[in-house]
């Protein structure tokens, strides 16, 4: 009887390498990511990501729209966290033009960004769990995401691409009764989080599938430019909400969860904790919501003075940076550059999957939490 060898043997017998294409049409590459895997049996020797399948030239497009019209293009990048993309962009423009944003608008922006974080993490949790085979969590997470989408729909009329912010503030104040619904959602979400954790956190199979999978040290993660939960999972305390507070984050009290091992399970725990911290921030925001206008004094035609700036915020996926250059003459940006967190995190996949099995590849794509709209732009 032969003993099956799960580990790739280095003997002269195993010289047959198998090259397989994972994607661009594959159920767990989250869109149109293509990963070319070089396998020895089931063990991954090397992985090469091929991206660009939905490259729409957003940066180029933006250079030919005026500063206000760009907001709706930012929706289309990380389309599961459109509000966060809006936020990063309008803040970058505000920084370039030195516009003061009313406090109420900053509060509402913070609430929206955190709500968006919950929605984005719901999607991550569902797909990540489904990739590992836990089907039910997907449906549960999408059920809660639906509530978030309902809230956004009531706020700005859209469910996916919100176009919900303007340079200088917000187009609309929150509708009456919205804060009450948001509060009840927060209560509901806390209970549901416990549901998810019952299904996964202490599940032996979940632990086996995620513990010690894709371990990366903090130093290496920094070098690879990982950001967001993958970086914090390796114990690097870097959250732009704390380090370079934007919106109204400096007025809020919240914790940054950090991992210790830098494996998939730690990244999972971190995001689960971020759900709770987001709820905490939303509650604080609702409690302390100041009165006042939601739109600052902004010229009708935006025309920032010549100059450039880089502004980064913490999106659900990590550091979302906007590098904007204005030539001071036209109403379009001269250069519009996005630093997409998914793009930089995806770069780490090659390092993470090496030596793991095919089944881990999907777990690792899930743990990186990519949105191809943002990777390819």
């Amino acid at each position, binding site marked *: 009887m032969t003993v099956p060898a799960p580990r790739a043997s280095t003997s002269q017998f195993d010289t047959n390498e198998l090259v397989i294409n994972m994607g661009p049409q594959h159920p767990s590459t989250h869109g149109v990511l293509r990963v070319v895997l070089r396998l020895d049996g089931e063990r991954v020797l090397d992985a090469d990501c091929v991206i660009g399948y939905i490259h729409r030239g957003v940066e*180029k497009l933006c250079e030919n729209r005026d500063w206000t019209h760009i907001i709706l293009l930012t929706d289309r990048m990380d389309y599961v966290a459109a509000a966060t993309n809006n936020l990063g962009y309008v803040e970058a423009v505000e920084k370039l033009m030195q516009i003061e944003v009313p406090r109420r608008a900053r509060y509402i922006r913070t609430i929206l960004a955190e709500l968006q974080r919950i929605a984005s993490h719901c999607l991550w949790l569902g797909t990540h769990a489904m990739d590992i085979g836990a089907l039910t969590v997907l449906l549960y997470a999408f059920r809660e995401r639906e509530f978030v989408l309902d809230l956004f729909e009531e706020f700005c009329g859209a469910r996916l691409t919100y176009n919900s912010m303007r340079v200088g503030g917000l187009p609309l104040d929150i509708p009456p009764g919205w804060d009450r619904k948001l509060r009840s959602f927060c209560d509901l979400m806390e209970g549901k989080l416990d549901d998810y954790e019952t299904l996964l956190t202490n599940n032996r199979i979940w632990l086996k599938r995620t513990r010690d999978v894709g371990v990366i040290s903090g130093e290496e993660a920094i070098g690879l*430019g990982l950001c967001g939960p993958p970086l914090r999972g390796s114990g690097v305390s870097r959250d732009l909400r704390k380090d370079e507070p934007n919106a109204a984050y400096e007025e809020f009290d919240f914790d940054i969860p950090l991992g210790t091992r830098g494996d998939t399970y730690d990244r999972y725990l971190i995001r689960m904790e971020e759900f709770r911290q987001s709820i905490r921030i939303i509650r604080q925001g609702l409690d302390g919501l100041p009165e006042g206008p939601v739109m600052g004094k902004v010229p009708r035609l935006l025309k920032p003075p010549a*100059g450039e700036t*880089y502004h980064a915020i913490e999106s659900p996926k990590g550091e979302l940076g906007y590098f904007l250059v204005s*030539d001071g003459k036209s109403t379009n940006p001269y250069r519009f550059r996005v*630093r997409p967190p998914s793009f*930089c995190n995806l770069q780490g996949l090659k390092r993470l999957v090496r030596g793991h099995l095919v089944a881990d590849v999907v777990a690792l794509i899930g743990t990186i939490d990519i949105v191809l709209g943002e990777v390819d732009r």
Partner: protein
Amino acid sequence: MEAPIAVAAVQDALPGAIEAVSYWVGDWTLIVARERLLEVLEFLKTAEATAFDYCSDVTATDWPPRERRFDLIYCLYSTRLRHRIRVKARVAEDEEVESVTGLWPAANWLEREVFDQFGINIVNHPDLRRILMPDEWQGYPQRKDYPLEGPGELLMENPQDWLRVRNLPDEAADLRSGAGPDSEIE
């Protein structure tokens, strides 16, 4: 506005390497000669006072009429000291730039994107290929003289030919009626 320690440290350690220091809406930028770029970046990464261990972004800007038309921009961050800096170098179309993947592995894809979109020659890069555009693509979309409109098929297959066609003054005059990105640039 007083320059932060990091800027002063570079100026002290590498005199003459920094051509200019700029400050605008809270961001510090070092403008460095292309020849000494790698030296400056290496110093920024390793020196105690700077410790920029995190490469946020590598990107470029195209300023066509200029002799050295590209600005190559590195956005750096220090996870230890929690400060940011931008380093900028001017590069001409035919000039070569040393890759920084040795300093920050993160720059790998970012430099590939710069190559893909601007066509800046980055040398000593471990894996310099197009990243967002298909491998057989011609032309560099983020350049300011890249056509935004044109006869679709021709453009898709061979943008370089299209560029040549449209630079002939009389033949393509009617095609040029749509305002391109270069309409503002003399």
